[in-house]
């Protein structure tokens, strides 16, 4: 019973943290983009614009829940929910730090240490694609449809590359549990052992989160807003939530798999974890400010003709290396 209530408390804290992160991610992105583009960014609401996310949230909540004519109502409403929920589920298995002592009780800084944690993450993010496909399909809009078709093609192909990079890490660590993967990096971070794997992961993660330069599904210059075109108000916020939390997830995952997770000297583990994740988030925003967008066919060609073969090769090399190490 105590365990159950502890898990409930942890979930509540986690959801609160994630919602806050999402809100302030939007502010951080706008602020940083402002800096990159030699302008101020939001600075009207509250000191330094710090209350801007609050204002945005309130605005989106109170917007009319508009629905275009002839949409497939149930699917139309379910789609953003799928995106939001799947992006949250992932956090059940991401470890923020090791065990800590809390009021005399030992508390783990993760919800669950599933022995196939990494599979769970990949599975959840695959289901997230449904939100995009269904959203684009049910909107009854050509731009939405094109956006969702692109998106599904993109996510499926880059999921493959992502998985290949992850498999190499799993081989190196010898476990599928994220906690054990982090613990295996106490001496040496996997980025040193898996540099190619990390690069593949990074590129695939950017594509997976629909970020520039791979933000084709919502390429506003061509497709207005892609699959989100017909969504407004809180339904739009849910899509956005899924997307931004996806960025945090991928940053956290990159930290966990390649950059030693919570490991680091002096500072508390959680701080290390947050810092490392932040570096990735910053990098993604930086990319958005700098890079042109690739074209759809170029993206697919790059994924299938370059990333996947290199990923496979990486796995072969890693496997040989693991076997040699054991003998």
């Amino acid at each position, binding site marked *: 019973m105590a365990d159950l209530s502890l898990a409930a408390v942890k979930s509540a804290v986690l959801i609160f943290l994630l919602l806050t992160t999402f809100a302030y991610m939007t502010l951080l992105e706008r602020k940083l*983009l402002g800096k*990159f*583009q*030699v*302008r101020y960014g939001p600075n009207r609401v509250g000191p330094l614009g710090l209350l801007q996310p609050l204002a945005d949230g309130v605005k989106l909540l109170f917007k009319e829940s508009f629905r275009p004519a002839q949409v497939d109502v149930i699917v139309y409403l379910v789609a953003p929910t799928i995106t939001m929920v799947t992006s949250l589920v992932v956090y059940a298995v991401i470890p923020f730090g090791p065990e800590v002592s809390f009021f005399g009780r030992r508390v783990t800084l993760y919800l669950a240490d599933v022995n196939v944690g990494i599979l769970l993450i990949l599975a959840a993010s695959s289901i997230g694609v449904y939100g995009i496909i269904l959203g684009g399909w049910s909107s009854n809009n*050509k*731009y939405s449809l*094109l956006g969702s078709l*692109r998106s599904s093609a993109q996510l499926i192909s880059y999921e493959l590359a992502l998985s290949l990079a992850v498999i190499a890490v799993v081989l190196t660590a010898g476990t599928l549990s994220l906690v054990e993967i982090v613990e295996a990096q106490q001496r040496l971070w996997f980025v040193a052992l898996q540099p190619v794997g990390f690069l593949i992961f990074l590129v695939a993660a950017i594509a997976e989160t629909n970020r*520039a*330069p791979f*933000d084709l599904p919502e*390429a*506003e*210059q*061509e*497709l*207005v807003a892609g699959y989100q075109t017909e969504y407004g108000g809180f339904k739009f916020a849910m899509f956005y939530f899924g997307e931004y939390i996806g960025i945090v997830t991928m940053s956290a995952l990159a930290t966990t798999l390649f950059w030693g997770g919570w490991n680091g000297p002096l500072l508390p583990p959680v701080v290390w974890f947050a810092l490392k994740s932040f570096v990735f988030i910053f990098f993604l925003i930086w990319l*958005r*400010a*700098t*890079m*042109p*967008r*690739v*074209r*759809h*066919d*170029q993206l697919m060609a790059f994924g299938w003709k370059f990333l996947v073969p290199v990923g496979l090769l990486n796995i072969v090399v890693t496997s040989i290396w693991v076997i040699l190490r054991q003998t």
Partner: protein
Amino acid sequence: MNELTRETLVLNMGPHHPSTHGVLRLIVELEGELVLGTEPVIGYLHTGFEKEMETRTYHQNIVFPPRIEYLATMIEEHAYVLAVEKLLGIRPPARAEVIRIMMAELSRIASHLVWLGTSAVDVNVSSLLMYCFNDRERILDILEMVSGQRMMHGYMRIGGLQWDLPDGFEQAVRAVIDDMPGRLEEYERLLGDNLIWRKRTEGIAVLNADDALRYGCTGPVLRGSGVGYDVRRAFPYGGYDEYEFEVPLGRAGDAYDRYLVRMEEMRQSCRIIRQALERLEPGPVLVDDRKVALPPRRELVRSMEAVIHQFKLVSEGIRPPVGEVYSAVESPRGEKGYYIVSDGSNRPSRVRVRSASFNNLQALPVMVFRNQVADIVVAIASIDIVLGDVDR
């Protein structure tokens, strides 16, 4: 082919679409993401300026050209006053010509900067837009310093200029054109050195020289295809024959070549401005013809004749001889011509604007045929249309 088995999707892009640079509507026929047909639908920004110019005197009409094409404002004014001057058979004083050329070239840089920023943002390099607009703002500051307005200047006069340059003009211009090559190099590093930008523009929206000529394309669109036609060179006007500059040419006729051509044109414009600064000699900036230009104010208190001229010019305006002229300038978008018919009255009986944007836009379907949807955006950006100029 049987209509039923043709699996095409007709997509209506615009007239309110993020990347059609105004109110352009495209009816696009798609097979997957492949473009099979494009039909530009224009006219959403029709203003009737040409007709309106028939109801106003020649001098009043100076305010219309910059409103027709609002990015290269000084060049537009230049085009109009040159046409009227040709009708009258007069030539402005040397100082006025030099200043006009400087203004025109500053406008050209400002216009190309807008093109660079917007075409970058069309492939999602959002930062460059801000940098370019910052630079453009410095140029607009100079134009404001000279004329009192950022965009709709009304600075040129038939037979010269409204007034002379203000103090501190030369330093301000030098500061901008000394910075410009460095800034351009920076932008080229950001775009030209970027593999994704190259992939998005090289071999995209190709227009070969024959098609370009067939559609009457001019400006960077034509020169990107390798045809060396620049009105400043082919039919020098306003003293351009005395300046040294190169006309950059492309080869492949793709979006990347048009990008290169425009980047080089900005450098050449800086070069022309530098030469113009050297040529700037003191002197009058308005012709001394009392039938065309207002008399200086100091004469009004002394000479009755000057008062009469002033009154006639203000109340009635100039009366060019009967005839018709066509006079063209090189605008950032190509050949911008004014065709004016005079019936001897104080208002033109017909004004027709030959806009390069209109002709260039007609080549869009050829450019994007069998390209991807995403390339339409690149193509439109590389044509650099101004919808006000297309529809007039």
